[in-house]
């Protein structure tokens, strides 16, 4: 493990920018720091990196601002990786996007960034992702905050235990007549719940590998790993749960990100790489969801925008069968829509593909929904053989008189593909993030007319057109003062006076491809300047002669 790490570090220094192509595994903290540094050095004209905060564990929360000139004056997408610590792919997709985008021909990068900015947060769970590189590997989402998951007054007193000594936490099954699990008839390497309703009998208790260290009757209920970034946000937050904390946004990393985003008025969309997936499977409009004052569903016009974006995503990704996922309480991507008021798009970026039965091996269609068996079948089709540990008997202090076996698939493999598949996934998601930027709201003046009613009296009329595919801001953001309206101003000279219409006014959201009609009656002569601007649309101005 360590050797491997040193090797990639060495590679990195040797190859500089070529590094990402040569990387062999997901990025540890040190590797990510280096990749950020390399990017900032290679493209100082386009990217500025800074440390938003450091976690309780002393790890960097990076912010990469990608833009030209004043990035805040252009519409922007926030790209967030490491939403869950066990999802290392999310980190790769975020940092990889920055690398692949900026490595494109300089003209096209320049053109894109003239009109659009990106804010990339490659890893929001750096304390947790590091567990992948630790001596004991297990799926971890919690940060380094010493938290009391079972609220018994003791901290981290009962974590996992590597009973078979293989350096990774897998599953543990205990033969027990009161157990609720049976062997999966599709593939006996995995276990599924016995259906008592059909008279089936359970044979095993199934739990994560470990012992009841504090002898409280619960297993592994309060180990290393504190508050989870993806459970600590304000929307649908549930306090006091394992990993959620005592109150929302209690963690430094959540606070730092939210503080930045709330002040980034130009962000119109947030793309997170995490468990939720409204890019493969767009949301449906549910009128009941917006009927109450605390809404629980997207507004209809926002659902339409989601469908449009999802269509483009699926065209680029060309992958089907994305699993449907239920959002966690306090989840980040939901926060980005419901509480931040921006378009929020989320995808895990990859999931275990469904594989047709291999007739040569006399495989049959799977009868039971079981992600482990699906994974094993897919892994076999890819020639991946080293991610399953056969069940093996161990001595267990809590079950001295029972048969206890440890085994199952490796941690991380259900969310993170083998690293060799990552560059292609980064490529596709980079393409998507560029496509999304093309859909950004953008305003223009059309049908501009000046009518002379009489000498020195002119009627001006025009349409403010949103040429983008997405509205200038969301329906949910309509009433939030963290989203700015389009401010339209007339700049008059001394002999001009507005007789009708407003010298200064704010426009509500304009739908994608929609327009807002304005008219003024102006007394006087000479040049007059009209300017419209908002952070999510950029600004536009014209000069007319009266």
């Amino acid at each position, binding site marked *: 493990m360590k050797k491997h790490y040193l090797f990639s570090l060495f590679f990195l220094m040797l190859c500089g920018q070529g590094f990402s192509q040569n990387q062999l595994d997901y990025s540890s903290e040190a590797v990510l720091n280096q990749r950020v540094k390399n990017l900032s050095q290679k493209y100082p004209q386009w990217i500025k990196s800074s440390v938003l905060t450091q976690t309780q564990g002393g790890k960097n929360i990076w912010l990469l601002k990608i833009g030209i000139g004043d990035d805040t004056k252009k519409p922007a997408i926030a790209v967030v990786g490491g939403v869950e610590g066990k999802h290392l792919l999310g980190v790769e997709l975020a940092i990889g996007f920055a690398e692949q985008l900026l490595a494109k021909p300089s003209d096209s990068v320049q053109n894109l960034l003239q009109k659009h900015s990106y804010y990339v947060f490659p890893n929001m769970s750096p304390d947790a992702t590091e567990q992948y590189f630790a001596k004991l590997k297990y799926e971890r989402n919690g940060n380094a905050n010493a938290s009391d998951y079972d*609220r*018994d*007054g003791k901290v981290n007193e009962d974590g996992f235990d590597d009973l078979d000594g293989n350096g990774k936490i897998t599953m543990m099954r205990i033969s027990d007549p009161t157990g609720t699990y049976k062997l999966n008839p599709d593939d006996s390497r995995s276990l599924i719940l016995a259906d008592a309703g059909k008279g089936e009998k359970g044979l095993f208790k199934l739990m994560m590998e470990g012992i009841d260290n*504090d*002898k*409280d*009757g619960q297993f592994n209920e309060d180990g290393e790993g504190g508050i989870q970034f993806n459970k600590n*946000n*304000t929307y649908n*937050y549930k*306090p*006091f749960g394992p990993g959620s904390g*005592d*109150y*929302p*946004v209690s963690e430094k990393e959540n*606070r730092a990100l*939210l*503080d930045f985003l*709330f002040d980034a008025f130009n962000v119109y969309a947030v793309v997170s790489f995490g468990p939720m997936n409204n890019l493969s499977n767009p949301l449906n409009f549910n009128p009941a969801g917006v009927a109450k*004052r*605390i*809404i629980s569903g997207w507004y209809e016009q926002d659902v339409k925008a989601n469908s449009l974006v999802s269509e483009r995503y699926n065209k680029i990704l060309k992958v089907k069968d994305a699993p449907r996922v239920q959002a966690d309480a306090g989840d980040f991507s939901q926060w980005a829509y*419901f*509480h931040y*008021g921006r378009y929020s798009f989320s995808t895990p970026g990859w999931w275990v593909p469904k594989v047709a039965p291999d007739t040569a091996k006399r495989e049959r269609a799977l009868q039971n929904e079981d992600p482990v068996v699906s994974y094993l079948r897919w892994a076999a089709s890819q020639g991946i053989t080293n991610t399953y540990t056969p069940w093996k008997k161990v001595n267990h202090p809590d079950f001295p008189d029972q048969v206890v076996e440890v085994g199952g698939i490796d941690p991380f493999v259900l969310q993170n593909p083998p690293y060799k598949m990552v560059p292609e996934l980064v490529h596709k998601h980079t393409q998507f993030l560029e496509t999304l930027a093309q859909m950004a709201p953008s305003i223009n003046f059309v049908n501009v007319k000046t009518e002379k009613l009489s000498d020195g009296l002119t009627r001006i009329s025009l349409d403010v057109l949103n040429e983008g595919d997405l509205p200038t801001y969301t329906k*949910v*953001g*309509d*009433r*939030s*003062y*963290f*989203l*700015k*309206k389009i*401010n339209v101003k007339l700049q008059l000279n001394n002999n001009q006076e507005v007789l009708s219409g*407003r*010298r*200064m*006014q*704010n426009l509500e959201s304009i739908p994608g491809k929609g327009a807002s009609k304005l008219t003024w009656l102006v007394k006087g002569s000479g040049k007059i300047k009209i300017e419209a*601007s*908002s*952070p999510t649309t950029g600004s536009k101005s014209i000069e007319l002669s009266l």
Partner: protein
Amino acid sequence: MKKKFLYTLAICAGLSGIAKAQKPEQILAAVGTPANPKVTVSWNRYYDYGGITEICKKLAAAHPNLVKLESMGKSFQGKDLWVMTISDLKQGNPDKKPAMYIDGNIHSNEIQGSEFALYTAWYLVEMFNQGNPAVKSLLQEKTFYIAPTINPDARDHFFHQGNTAHSPRTGLIPIDNDRDGLINEDGFDDLDKDGHITMMRRKNPNGRYIVDPTDNRRMIMVAPGQKGEYELLGSEGIDNDGDGLVNEDGDGAYDPNRDWAWGWQPNYIQGGAYKYPFSLPESRAVVDFVMKKPNIAAAQSYHNNGGMILRGPGSPEDLDTYNSQDVRVYDALGKKGEELLPGYRYLVVYKDLYSAFGGELDWFYGGRGVYTFSNELWTSFTMYSKPDGPDSQSKLYSFDKDLLMQDAFVDWKTYNHPTYGEIEIGGFKKTYTRLHPGFLLESDAHRNMAFSVYHAYNTPKLSVSELSVKPLAGGFTEVTAVVNNERLIPTHSSQDVKHKIEVPDVISLTGGQVVAGMIVQNRDLGITEEQKSDPANIKVDNIPGYGFVTVRWIVKGNVKKFTVNVTSKKGGEATYSN
């Protein structure tokens, strides 16, 4: 530094002695009031942040054994958020005694909460100092954490800048209220420069107002069919940014009492919410302080006005949080409050006031399991000790005439307005309608202090009321202990128990080798529940108010002497040896 401070103190004390010609021997104490306090404070006026700071420092300097002054953190503008720990510091650790947290002035225009909180601190320590036994035993058992103002920036704005009685409610982080990209660009303008934002009126034959024939200061609306003489143009101000709106984006404008982490909702659902719970530095400082004081079992947050003793829930969505067991405790406290505070009513925020998410009292209760009230100080009942009649407005004018020598009103004066032309400016001062007139301030501060004392007194008081030892056959001893809570408030509210907010109380036995331990659910019928791990230290979820729990141990051998220790975060500690 210190010398200088003491010297100044001495001078001040000396001066006040001379100026007031009051020597101890000239005074006959009025009952219930510290007649000869170490720190003299006039309780018939208001103090800005500097004034509050000085009073806090004087109290801490004069009563080092009763007051510990510290800063919870800084406000947005960098002012220290003072909190005084008030307890008999020589008897026990104040952070281990059942405690009450009191703050004031979360809404910056609701200033008298600070004076009420300060009065509470002052009264308790001065009465203690004069040897009052009730206060002495209270401070021996309990701790008060008193934060006079948790919105000092905007408090000073209220004091020193042009404001109405209703402004500012916010803190002073700049906010773009009209969402035009500009910040605080069009607030009130104190056109007549008197420190009060009053009303603007203009003569207009099409107006719908006339001068009240019974009081020429008052504007009344005419009846349909009648002709008016004036139009009202709102609060003093001009269209500073030329956008066609007057006073639409003034200083700040969020609500610090929508920044708390229970049922919090964003500003498009809950007007006034900021970014996320505790995104304001002031409430952040409070929560950081409170999280470090698990002994807080009661809380009060002073607001104005209307004479209300409020409890949550703040919103109907949160109705289930306040279950019947906890409501019984609230009711018992609140009903007592109604007796102590004439004209005040014990009410529930969401149904009797308005619905609000993210309020402080909901977080203290929902998030920490602490029984919490917000008193809305000042009620017009107090003016004539009578409930409001049908015309409560006219009472404001008559009270001002009858008892305040017309000091509460700024008389109408003409003014040349850049947009409206010739207008008149006048109306009630910012210090009237929501704030106590001077002569009623001390009296109501005292009554509210008494209510807090009652609330704090009723935090748990634990004792071991029985320790029985019985030899068992086979070489064992059975030890049974009964632990009582002598007060109304349980060690864990049922909200606390439900979410395991605070760790359980622990009842420990020393003196023998414990082989088994159990909670006795029914002593007569012999029903018990065993605690398998660590049986010497029995964990109980709660010791109910005016209730008890019974625990039992089986000890090896024939032992007779034992000690029982009880520790509870909110209930304090108790110990008993036979």
